[in-house]
């Protein structure tokens, strides 16, 4: 670049010329900078376009229905899955509201609740809709709707993600109906086996020998196991179909139920010479459903006897009043305990701890799940404390007799 005053122009001083040169130089620098930024910006934009294309491809080909609307609920985007699932083409839906198309079949209050959640609270709405496809077929959709906000917190648009769960729900219903029906139909032949084997065992005039009587006892025991399983399956189908347990409350002594349950388990208690220590005072009255509390105690006591080693104690005790009108009853064994890693799964249905499975292969893993549901239906809670190889204590709270 030429140095100062080596160029002259007529009528322009060297100083002025220098100034002009400076201005041009600075302009040139700015332009170069701008050009660089533009080049960078262009690359950025291209990258963003690639990103956007990737996202669009992902959204377009997602297997869930994705619908994007403006803040009034007017559709401006649906993906392929929505087209396939609802039967409406993209062109048919743009500019319309889902309510005019597949939606709008629920009660107005339900939609009001949805709008309140996404528009006023600006939170994610999670729910189920019964919608209708273009061909008139109904379907059930699990829906998540979230609002997308701008930097000022105003709603830009809503994104709705829907999954067609019609099939899952149908299968679930069929399963529950099957379990219910099968269980009812199983009860008649089970009762036949139960009653006739009882008649044979008790018949005073029979001439059965000891071995034959033992065989009959085995039939009876097997029958009892099946009766129990059918009852558990019915309870499960009852819980799964969302029905509440009907609780018929009355005042009764805990020890009345407990004595029945202990008699039920007497043969195992004797064989293992278990020491039953019942500290529940005889006058302790609770206000609950007798049959259901019997079922809970029967489960806890039979578990304790089953998993307890021979010659150990089973402690049954109570905190007569927790201050909230509940008795807190506990059944403690000195058995193998529940492995620490499996504690969190104990109340899952069909779950059985590894050590329990080894010792007693025949359990169903349903008893505790049902027991907790029964206690919860009373407004109480069922929980446990356990140390491996030391023992397990099951504890539940149950409403006291009201004075």
């Amino acid at each position, binding site marked *: 670049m030429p140095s100062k005053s080596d160029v002259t122009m007529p009528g322009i001083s060297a100083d002025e010329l220098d100034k002009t040169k400076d201005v041009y130089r600075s302009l040139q620098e700015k332009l170069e900078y701008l050009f660089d930024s533009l080049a960078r910006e262009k690359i950025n934009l291209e990258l963003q376009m690639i990103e956007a294309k990737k996202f669009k491809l992902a959204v377009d080909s997602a297997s869930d229905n994705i619908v994007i609307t403006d803040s009034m609920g007017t559709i401006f985007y649906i993906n392929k899955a929505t087209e396939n699932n609802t039967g409406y083409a993209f062109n048919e839906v743009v500019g319309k509201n889902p309510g005019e198309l597949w939606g709008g079949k629920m009660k107005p209050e339900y939609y009001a609740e949805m709008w309140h959640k996404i528009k006023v609270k600006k939170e994610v709405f999670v729910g189920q809709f019964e919608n209708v496809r273009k061909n008139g077929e109904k379907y059930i959709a699990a829906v998540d709707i979230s609002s997308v906000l701008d930097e000022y917190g105003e709603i830009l648009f809503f994104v709705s993600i829907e999954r067609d769960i019609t099939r899952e729900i149908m299968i679930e219903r069929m399963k529950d109906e099957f379990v219910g029906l099968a269980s*009812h139909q199983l*009860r*008649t032949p*089970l*009762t*036949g086996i*139960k*009653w*006739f084997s*009882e*008649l044979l065992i*008790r018949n005073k005039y029979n001439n059965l020998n000891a071995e034959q009587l033992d065989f009959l006892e085995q039939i009876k025991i097997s029958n009892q196991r099946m*009766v129990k399983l*059918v*009852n558990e399956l*019915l309870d499960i189908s*009852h819980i799964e179909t969302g*029905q509440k*347990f*009907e609780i018929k409350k009355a005042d009764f002594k805990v020890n009345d139920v407990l004595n029945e349950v202990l008699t039920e388990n007497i043969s195992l208690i004797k064989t293992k010479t278990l020491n039953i220590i019942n500290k529940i005072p005889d006058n302790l009255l609770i206000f609950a459903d007798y049959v259901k509390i019997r079922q809970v105690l029967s489960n806890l006591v039979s578990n304790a006897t089953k998993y307890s080693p021979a010659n150990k104690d089973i402690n049954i005790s109570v905190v007569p009043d927790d201050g909230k009108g509940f008795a807190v009853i506990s059944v403690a064994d000195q058995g193998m305990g529940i492995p620490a890693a499996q504690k969190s799964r104990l109340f899952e249905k069909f779950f059985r701890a590894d050590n329990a499975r080894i010792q007693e292969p025949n359990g169903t893993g349903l008893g505790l799940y049902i027991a907790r549901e029964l206690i919860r239906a009373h407004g109480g809670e069922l929980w446990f404390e356990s140390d491996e190889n030391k023992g397990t204590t099951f504890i539940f709270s149950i409403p006291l007799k009201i004075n």
Partner: protein
Amino acid sequence: MRKKILIVEDDVLLVKAISYEFEQENFEVFTAGNGEDGLAMAEEHLPDLILADINMPKMDGLTMLKELRATEWGKNILVIMLTNYSDEQRVLEALSQKAFYYLVKSDWDLSQIVAKVREKLGS
């Protein structure tokens, strides 16, 4: 005098077992295979207690119970519902019609059912 008991149950095998047990226990036993016959038998013999199934042909046990309660002669007869159903709605319906007990068959030994009946009859 021997107590009269009416068993209304459509399953022939179960009727055989339960009536055998009650006869052994010195009851006078009548049986019917559906609610309609059950009502007729009840009116004819005026039993001390009726054991009734729910799910039966012609007339089910709950309808029979309702009709029984509507009669002058039948409104105070002791009734125990004995069934395969344990669903709550039926239990409540039976109890609201003054059935004194509701037993799920497969949960009870015959001897326990006899004990319940004796308890209700005070015999």
